[in-house]
C-alpha cells in the first residue's frame, strides 16, 4: 500500500518536504479543487444570490450544489439549513452566541479546542454557565459523566468529535442519545472528523453540526459553517452578522428564513466552488476507504513511535480509537526544538506547542510545554511515515 489511488497527487512539497500538518489544514488538495476555483474565477465570477442574470444564477447553483453535498455527507435534512461561514469556528460561534441566553447551562468536555472554550468563557461574562467534563488522561470521555452533569437549566451539550491534539474519538452518538433523552440541544464540532469518520445528524442525534472545509474535507481555507437541525426554529437563532442577503431587500430587518438569516454579505463562492469539487472527490473515493488508509498509516506510526526509546505518545495509542493525528514528545528535547529540527534537518513539517487547546493539553498532562503533533492525510504514504519515524529516532538518540 502506498496511496489511496494511483492518481493521487504527491504528498511531497516541491522542495521534497513531507507535510504532516494536516490537522491544521490538509495539503495537498485534490487537483480538482484548484481547477474548480479557477473555473469559478475565470468563467462564473458573479455574485451568487444577488442578481437575476445568468452568471449570478450559475454562481448560486454552485453554492447550492455545495449545500446539497454537505447535506448528504452529514445525513442532514435540508440544504437550506446549511449555513456557510469562514470555518468551523464561525459555525460554533453562531451556535453558541446565537442560541444561549443568560442563565443557560452548557456541558462540554475537557478535550475542547479554544473554538468552543473561548466563546463559552465570553458567554460566561453574560451569565451563561458551563461545566467541563474531565476526560481520561488518554482523552476519552465517559458518557455517564455527561448524564450526571445535567442540571435543570442545562440547555446545550457541545462536544468535539475527535481531538485536534491526539486524535482521540469521543462517543458522539452515546452523548447524543443522552442529549435527546433530556431534550437538550446538541452541538458537535467535526473539525477533525468530517470526511474521515461517518457522521449522521439523525443517527447521532445532532442538532447543530459545525464543520470546516479545509481539513479532512480537502477544500480550501475560508469555507465551513454550521448545519442547523430541524428541532431549532430559525427565529430562535440570533445571527452573529446582519446585512445584505440579496433577499427581502425592501426591508431593513434581517430575514427570518434560512440560510439568509445567518448568511449576510457576499459569500466565499470561489472557495465553495473548490469545496464542491473536494466533496465530489471525497464522495468518489469514499470516507470509508480514506479512513482505512489513514488508520493503517496511523497504526504504523504508533507502532514505530512505541519502539523508539525516550518517546512518549499521548492519547489512546490505538488507531481504531483515534483519527490519524498523533501527539508525542521526546524526553530531554523541547517540542519547539523537535519541530525546528524536523523542518530544517529532516524536511518534515508538523505542528508543535499547545494547538489552541490548553484544556486538552491539561487533560493529557502536556500543559504548558505542549507536544509534537503529526497529522496525516489521505495523501500520505507509508514511505512518509517511515522517514518521519527515522527522523524521530535520530532526534531521540541525540536527546538521551
Amino acid at each position, binding site marked *: 500500500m502506498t496511496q489511496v489511488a494511483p492518481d493521487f497527487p504527491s504528498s511531497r512539497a516541491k522542495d521534497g518536504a513531507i507535510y504532516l500538518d494536516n490537522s491544521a489544514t490538509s495539503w495537498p488538495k485534490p487537483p480538482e479543487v484548484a481547477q474548480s476555483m479557477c473555473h469559478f474565477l475565470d468563467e462564473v465570477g458573479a455574485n451568487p444570490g444577488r442578481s437575476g442574470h445568468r452568471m449570478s444564477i450559475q454562481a448560486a447553483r454552485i*453554492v*447550492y450544489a455545495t449545500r446539497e453535498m454537505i447535506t448528504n455527507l452529514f445525513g442532514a435534512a435540508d440544504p437550506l439549513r446549511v449555513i456557510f461561514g469562514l470555518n468551523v469556528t464561525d459555525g460554533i460561534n453562531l451556535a453558541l452566541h446565537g442560541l444561549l441566553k443568560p442563565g443557560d447551562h452548557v456541558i462540554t468536555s475537557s478535550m475542547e479546542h479554544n473554538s468552543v472554550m473561548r466563546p463559552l468563557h465570553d458567554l460566561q461574562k453574560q451569565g451563561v454557565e458551563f461545566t467541563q467534563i474531565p476526560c481520561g488522561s488518554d482523552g476519552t470521555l465517559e458518557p455517564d459523566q455527561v448524564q450526571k452533569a445535567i442540571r435543570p437549566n442545562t440547555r446545550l451539550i457541545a462536544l468535539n468529535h475527535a481531538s485536534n491534539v491526539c486524535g482521540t474519538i469521543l462517543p458522539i452518538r452515546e452523548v447524543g442519545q443522552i442529549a435527546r433523552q433530556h431534550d437538550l440541544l446538541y452541538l458537535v464540532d467535526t473539525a477533525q472528523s468530517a470526511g474521515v469518520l461517518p457522521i449522521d445528524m439523525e443517527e447521532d442525534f445532532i442538532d447543530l453540526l459545525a464543520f470546516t472545509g479545509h481539513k479532512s474535507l480537502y477544500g480550501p481555507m475560508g469555507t465551513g459553517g454550521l448545519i442547523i437541525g430541524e428541532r431549532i426554529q430559525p427565529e430562535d437563532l440570533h445571527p452573529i452578522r446582519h446585512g445584505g442577503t*440579496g433577499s427581502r431587500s425592501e426591508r431593513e430587518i434581517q*430575514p427570518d*428564513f434560512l440560510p439568509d438569516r445567518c448568511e449576510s454579505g457576499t459569500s466565499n463562492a470561489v472557495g465553495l466552488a473548490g469545496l464542491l469539487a473536494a466533496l465530489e472527490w471525497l464522495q468518489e473515493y469514499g470516507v470509508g476507504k480514506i479512513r482505512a488508509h489513514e488508520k493503517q498509516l496511523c497504526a504504523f506510526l504508533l507502532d514505530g513511535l512505541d519502539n523508539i526509546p525516550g518517546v512518549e505518545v499521548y492519547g489512546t495509542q490505538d488507531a481504531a480509537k483515534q483519527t490519524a493525528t498523533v501527539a508525542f514528545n521526546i524526553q530531554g528535547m523541547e517540542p519547539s526544538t523537535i519541530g525546528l529540527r524536523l523542518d530544517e534537518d529532516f524536511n518534515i513539517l508538523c505542528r508543535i506547542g499547545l494547538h489552541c487547546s490548553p484544556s486538552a493539553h491539561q487533560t493529557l498532562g502536556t500543559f504548558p510545554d505542549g507536544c509534537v503533533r503529526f497529522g496525516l492525510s489521505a495523501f500520505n504514504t507509508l514511505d512518509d511515515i517511515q522517514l518521519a519515524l527515522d527522523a524521530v529516532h535520530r532526534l531521540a538518540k541525540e536527546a538521551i
Partner: protein
Amino acid sequence: MSAEFAAILVDSTSHALRIEKLLISQGLTCKLIPVPRHLSSDCGVCVRILKSDMETIQTLMIEHHINDQPIEVI
C-alpha cells in the same frame, strides 16, 4: 406573450434553486428570472413557469412541503 407565464415568488435564490430542481426532475419547464417589479420590490429572482402548469406545480409543491412560496400570474 407574458400572459402565458406565472411566477413562483421565493424567499431567496436558494429556495428558487430547490424548486427549480424539483420541477426539472418532473420534466416541467421553468426558468429563474429577476422578480418583475409589479409583483415585488425584491431584488432577487423568481421561478418562471408556464401558466398552464400552475395547478400541477401547486400540487407538487404541497406534496414536497413547499407551502409558503406563492405563485402569481405574470
